[in-house]
């Protein structure tokens, strides 16, 4: 008998859902075993009855819940909590669900500041008051990862998450397992570039400077991007962006890892680890431009990004 699946998207761009579709042939193999009982991205299903007749949110019961996107407003929170109630196993799909994702960059600012900028502060905007229609859901104080709101059983990070992992996780759950996780390795694990030692001194080079490499040659002939003095988040980022096999995607494009898979293990702090490692080998930590945002690009949840309190300058 196929297992029932609920798929929800919260503060999401639908990239994660496209990743599910990108399973391709594998999806066709899996589909007979999956019964999507609720998947708003594909099939219309109203929360309060087809005509809005109910005043209680209704999400069908299911064995597996897949949720993409972070939790930005009261609606997201409500839907997530309901999904959790109705599902036995909850999968956080994609970096927004896992760590807050790109939208959680907003966590560096207060809602007040954001609204001020959005509706009045920007030079190209005609000033208007904050929206306060009762049907527009209220923002939460910050953009949260799912596990900051409910318990999550399986996390598949990535922006987007790689179809290999979606298939592997679903297969594991179909086999009766109750949890699954990616191996705790960093992006360096599958990165083929030449490494010797990190001894670059001086300022960190900006991404618009050119990497040195010969386009005629493979990646295994290119020197490590960190060792060329650039900031590459590979050493502090969970491996897997290229799926089960293959070279990390940004490295394939000869560009530094941006950290989309988030920390290697729960609780690790990529910014602290990276700043520590770079300063240890003599790179000037002050020269990382827009440090907080860059180092926490996909992981603004879990308190990694928060508005800075106003403080008197150092004496």
């Amino acid at each position, binding site marked *: 008998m196929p297992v029932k699946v609920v798929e929800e998207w919260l503060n999401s761009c639908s990239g994660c859902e496209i990743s599910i579709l990108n399973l391709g042939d594998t999806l066709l193999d899996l589909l007979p075993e999956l019964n999507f009982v609720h998947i708003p991205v594909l099939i219309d299903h109203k929360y309060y009855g087809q005509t809005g007749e109910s005043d209680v949110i209704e999400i069908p019961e299911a064995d597996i819940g897949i949720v993409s996107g972070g939790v930005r407003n009261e609606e997201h929170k409500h839907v997530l909590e309901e999904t959790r109630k109705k599902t036995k196993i909850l999968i956080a799909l994609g970096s927004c669900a896992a760590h807050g994702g790109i939208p959680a960059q907003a966590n560096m600012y207060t809602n007040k500041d954001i609204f001020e900028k959005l509706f009045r502060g920007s030079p190209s905007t005609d000033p208007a008051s904050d929206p306060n229609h009762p049907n527009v859901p209220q923002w939460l104080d910050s953009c949260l990862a799912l596990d900051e709101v409910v318990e999550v059983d399986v996390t598949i990070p990535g922006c987007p998450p790689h179809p290999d992992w979606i298939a592997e996780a679903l297969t594991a759950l179909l086999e009766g397992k109750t949890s699954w996780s990616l191996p705790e390795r960093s992006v360096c694990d599958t990165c083929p570039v030449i490494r010797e030692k990190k001894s670059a001194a001086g300022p960190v080079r900006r991404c618009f400077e050119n990497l040195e490499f010969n386009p005629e040659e493979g990646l295994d002939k290119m020197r490590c991007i960190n060792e060329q003095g650039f900031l590459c988040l590979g050493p502090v980022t969970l491996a897997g962006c290229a799926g089960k096999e293959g070279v990390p995607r940004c490295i394939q494009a000869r560009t530094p890892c941006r950290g989309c898979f988030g920390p290697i293990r729960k609780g690790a702090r990529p910014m602290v*680890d990276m700043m*520590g490692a770079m*300063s240890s080998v003599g790179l000037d930590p002050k020269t990382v431009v827009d440090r907080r945002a860059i180092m926490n690009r996909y992981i603004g949840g879990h308190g990694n990004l928060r508005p*800075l*309190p106003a*403080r008197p300058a150092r004496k």
Partner: protein
Amino acid sequence: MEKEFEPKIVAFCCNWCSYLAADSAGMARNQYPSNVHIIRCMCSGMVHPNFVIDALTKGLADGVMVCGCHPGDCHYQDGNKRAESRSEAIFLMLEDFGLEQERFRLEWISASEGQKFAGVSGEMTQTLKELGPNFYKS
């Protein structure tokens, strides 16, 4: 009456200079506030920025000190220099985590400078008392 705020301070002291400085402070009976708790490390260059940031952002301490040998005196040649480079990163990150710069301090204290160890401990305690509790504690 409300009890005066007593900051909790962690001091990472290297095995070869600063830990001995704290021992010397004892021998000379140089008094300092009981807020400072020493953790012996082999070298100041052993202290991962994570230890400092975690101590502060998990609300475990109100302030952290890393104490090593004076430049040129490091038992391992340049461990203290590495500690200094990392401390630059730590100061930057204190900002990122919304923490006051005064909550972290890097000091070179030689084995004979018991008085300096006591002095620095006293200053750090006083500074943190004025600053109040680490807001991550709440």
